[in-house]
C-alpha cells in the first residue's frame, strides 16, 4: 500500500512537471548575458517618461555594437514589490530605477553597488537627485520634484494677504493669519488642502518637511541611531499640534478628497499644497494662479527631495556594459528631454538653462529655486522604509485626533527597536 502511494505521488509530481513545461515557453530569466543588459523602470503607463527612457536606450543601442539594453516597465505602484520579490529570488536585472529614499536600504541589503562613474560626472547636479550613501554615489536621477503651495492672486487679494516669495516666505503666524482670512471669505469648503487624503510615501514626502521646518525630524541624523528627541521632542509636538489644529479649526479636511488638485481647480479649497506635477492643471484652470513657497515655521521653509534614480545591481553580470550605458545616459541632452517630457525639474543647472520654463525668468524657475534652496532629502539610512511606515501611521493618527505625545513616543520606540534589531543598520 505505501509503495503504491509512493508511486502515485511520483506520478502526480510528473504531471505537475509537465504542466510546468506548458507554461514555461515565455519565461524570461534574470540575466541572459551575451551582451544583453536588462533594465527595469517604474514608468509603465507613464508615456512621457517611458518615451524618454526608450529614446535613450535606442540611442545607446545604436551608438555601439557590444551591448543591447532591454527595457521592462512596471506600473509605479507595483514596482517596489516587484523588485523586492526579484531580489529575494536573485532575479534582478542589471539596471534598476529606485525611488530616492530607498537607495540606502537597497545599498545596505546588497541589491545595488556604487555606480563607479568619474566624480566630475555629477558636477552641477542638484544634491537631491543623487543617491549618496556612506560617501558613495549609488544612483543618479534625471529630475526632481518640488513641493509648493498654489493659490490664486484674486483669492489672496480678496483676503488681504501678501503674496509670499522664495526670498520672503510666510512665517508660521502669517500663514495662520492668511488661513483665517481666506476662511473668512466663505468662498471655499476649506482654506487649505494639504492632500491629507493621500497615503503611502506621500505622507513622509509631503509632511516630514513641515516637521523639519518646525525643527523636528524623522531621525537624529548625526548617526542615524535613534529618533528620540527629534521625532518626539517639543518641536515635533508643536508640529503635531499645529497640523491637527488645522483640522480642529476647520481650515483643513482631516482627509481631503481623492484628488486634491481637481478639488482645488473645482473651487473646493483656497490654497493647495502639492508637488509641481500639478502645475499644468492649475495654470490651465486659472489665469491668476500663483505658486508660493511653503511657510517658514522657524527653521526655514523645507521641501522634500529625491525622486526616481538609476542604480546598478550587485548581481549584474555585465558591469562594464551597464556602466557604459549609465555614463552614456548622463548627458545634458537627456536631462533636457526628461524635463521637457515630464515638466518636472531637470536635475542639472545646464539642462535647466536649456528648458525655457526652467531658465532664468521662466514660469517654472521657482521650482528649481525651491529645490535648490529648501530641499531636504529623506534620511539616507537603511532604516528609512521602516521609518516611513511608522511615520505614515503616526501622522494619520495625529490627524485623526489621537494624543500626539503618546503617538510620537510609540513611533520613536518602534523605530529605535527596529534599528537596534538590525544592528544599527551598519554597513
Amino acid at each position: 500500500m505505501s509503495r503504491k502511494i509512493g508511486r502515485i505521488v511520483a506520478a502526480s509530481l510528473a504531471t505537475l512537471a509537465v504542466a510546468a513545461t506548458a507554461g514555461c515557453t515565455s519565461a524570461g530569466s534574470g540575466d541572459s548575458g551575451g551582451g544583453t543588459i536588462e533594465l527595469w523602470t517604474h514608468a509603465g503607463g507613464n508615456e512621457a517618461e517611458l518615451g524618454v527612457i526608450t529614446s535613450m536606450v535606442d540611442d545607446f543601442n545604436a551608438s555601439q555594437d557590444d551591448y543591447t539594453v532591454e527595457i521592462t516597465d512596471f506600473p509605479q505602484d507595483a514596482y517596489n514589490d516587484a523588485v523586492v520579490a526579484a531580489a529575494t529570488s536573485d532575479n534582478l536585472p542589471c539596471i534598476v530605477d529606485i525611488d530616492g529614499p530607498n537607495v540606502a536600504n537597497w545599498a545596505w541589503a546588497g541589491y545595488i553597488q556604487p555606480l563607479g562613474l568619474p566624480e566630475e560626472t555629477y558636477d552641477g547636479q542638484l544634491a537631491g537627485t543623487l543617491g549618496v550613501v556612506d560617501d558613495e554615489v549609488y544612483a543618479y536621477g534625471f529630475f526632481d520634484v518640488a513641493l509648493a503651495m498654489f493659490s490664486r492672486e484674486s483669492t489672496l487679494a480678496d483676503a488681504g494677504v501678501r503674496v509670499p516669495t522664495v526670498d520672503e516666505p510666510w512665517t508660521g503666524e502669517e500663514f495662520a493669519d492668511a488661513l483665517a482670512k481666506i476662511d473668512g471669505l466663505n468662498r471655499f469648503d476649506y482654506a487649505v488642502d494639504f492632500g491629507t487624503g493621500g497615503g503611502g510615501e506621500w505622507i513622509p514626502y509631503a509632511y516630514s518637511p513641515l516637521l523639519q521646518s518646525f525643527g523636528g525630524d524623522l531621525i537624529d541624523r548625526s548617526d542615524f541611531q535613534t529618533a528620540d528627541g527629534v521625532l518626539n521632542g517639543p518641536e515635533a509636538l508643536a508640529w503635531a499640534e499645529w497640523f491637527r489644529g488645522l483640522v480642529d479649526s476647520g481650515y483643513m479636511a482631516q482627509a481631503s478628497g481623492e484628488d486634491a488638485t481637481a478639488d482645488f481647480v473645482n473651487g473646493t479649497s483656497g490654497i493647495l499644497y502639492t508637488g509641481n506635477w500639478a502645475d499644468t492643471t492649475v495654470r490651465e484652470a486659472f489665469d491668476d494662479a500663483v505658486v508660493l513657497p511653503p511657510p517658514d515655521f522657524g527653521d526655514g521653509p523645507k521641501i522634500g527631495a529625491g525622486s526616481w534614480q538609476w542604480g546598478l545591481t550587485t548581481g549584474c553580470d555585465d558591469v562594464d556594459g551597464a556602466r557604459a550605458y549609465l555614463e552614456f545616459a548622463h548627458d545634458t541632452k537627456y536631462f533636457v528631454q526628461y524635463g521637457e517630457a515630464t515638466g518636472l525639474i531637470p536635475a542639472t543647472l545646464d539642462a535647466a538653462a536649456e528648458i525655457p520654463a526652467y531658465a532664468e525668468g521662466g514660469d517654472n524657475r521657482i521650482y528649481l529655486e525651491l529645490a535648490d534652496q529648501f530641499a531636504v532629502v529623506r534620511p539616507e539610512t537603511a532604516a528609512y522604509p521602516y521609518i516611513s511606515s511608522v511615520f505614515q501611521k503616526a501622522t494619520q493618527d495625529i490627524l485623526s485626533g489621537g494624543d500626539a505625545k503618546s503617538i510620537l513616543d510609540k513611533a520613536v520606540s518602534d523605530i529605535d527597536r527596529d534599528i537596534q534589531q538590525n544592528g544599527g543598520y551598519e554597513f
Partner: protein
Amino acid sequence: MVTTEATVLPDLEPPASRANRTSGANRPGRRSRVLITVARIAIVGFFALPIVFMLVSSLKPDLQIFADLGSWRAFAPVGEVSLDNYAGVFDRVPFWQFLANSVVISGVTVVLGILINSMAAFALARLRWRGRGFVLTLILATLIVPFETLALPLLWWVNKLPSLEANGFSLEFSQGWLNTYHVQIIPFIANAFSVYLFYQYFSSIPRELDEAARVDGAGWFAIYARVVMPLSGPAIATVAILTFLPAWNSYLWPLMVIQSEELRPVMIGLQYFFQLNVSWGQVMAYSSLITVPVVALFIAFQKSFINSIASSGVKG
C-alpha cells in the same frame, strides 16, 4: 463539517425530478406580486448605483467626475461625455494581452480545479478506505487560511521549485517558477473549499447509482466520470464561479511573481493609472472593462448555477 447529507434526501429520489416542481406550490396573489416587484426595484438601486457611478464616470473627464461627486449628476451621463477615457486606456496598457492572460490563467485554474478537487471529493465521499475521515478533517482544517498570510513563504518556496523548460528540442530543468504562467495557476488548483462543496454534493447523490453501475461492470473512474459528475452540474458551476472570481481578481500574487509585461493579468493593469496624477476617468474605464467579461460569464453561468438542479437531465 456537517455530515447530515443522508437526512436531506430521505426518499432518495433523484434531485432533478423534484426540482421541476419546486416551490411552485404557492404562486403569490396579485397584491403581493406588486409588493414584491416594488421591493425588488427598490433594491436594484441599492446594488446597481455604485456600478452605474463607475460606468458613468468612465465617460467623463477627471475634473467633471469630481465636480459631480456630490449630486445626482454622478449617476447621469451629463456634461462632457465621451469615450476619451477608453481611448486613453487602450493607449496606455496592452489591454487585450492582459485580458488574454487572465482568461488563460483563470480558465485553466477553473478546469483543473474542478477536475482535481472533484476527484478528491469522490474518493472522500463515495469510496471506502482507511484514514479518509482523517484526511477530510485535515483538508477542512486548511479552509480558513487566508492567502495573504502565506504569500511570503510561498514566494520563497516556489522560487526553489524546478521548472522544465523546452530549449529547442531538449528539455532542461531550471530553478524557480517566477515569471511564468504556471506559477499563477498551480498553487491555486487544489482548494479545500471546492473539495468540501463537491464532497457535500456527492454525498447527496444516491449510492444505488454506483452499485447499479458496478453491476454493469463499470470501474470507479467510469462511475466518477459517467455517473456522478454528470449529476453534479450545480456543484461544478458553484466551484467554477468560486474559483474563477479570485483567480480573475488576484493581485498580490502576480505582483510578486510576475515581472514581464506579457504575463501580467488584468488586475495589475489597474496600477498603470495611478501615477503622480491619478487619472480617475481611466481608472473607471479600465475597471468597467475588466468587470464586463465577468458579468457576461455570470449571466451565461447562472442558468446552471441555480437552475441546473432542475435541468441537469438525470438519466439514472
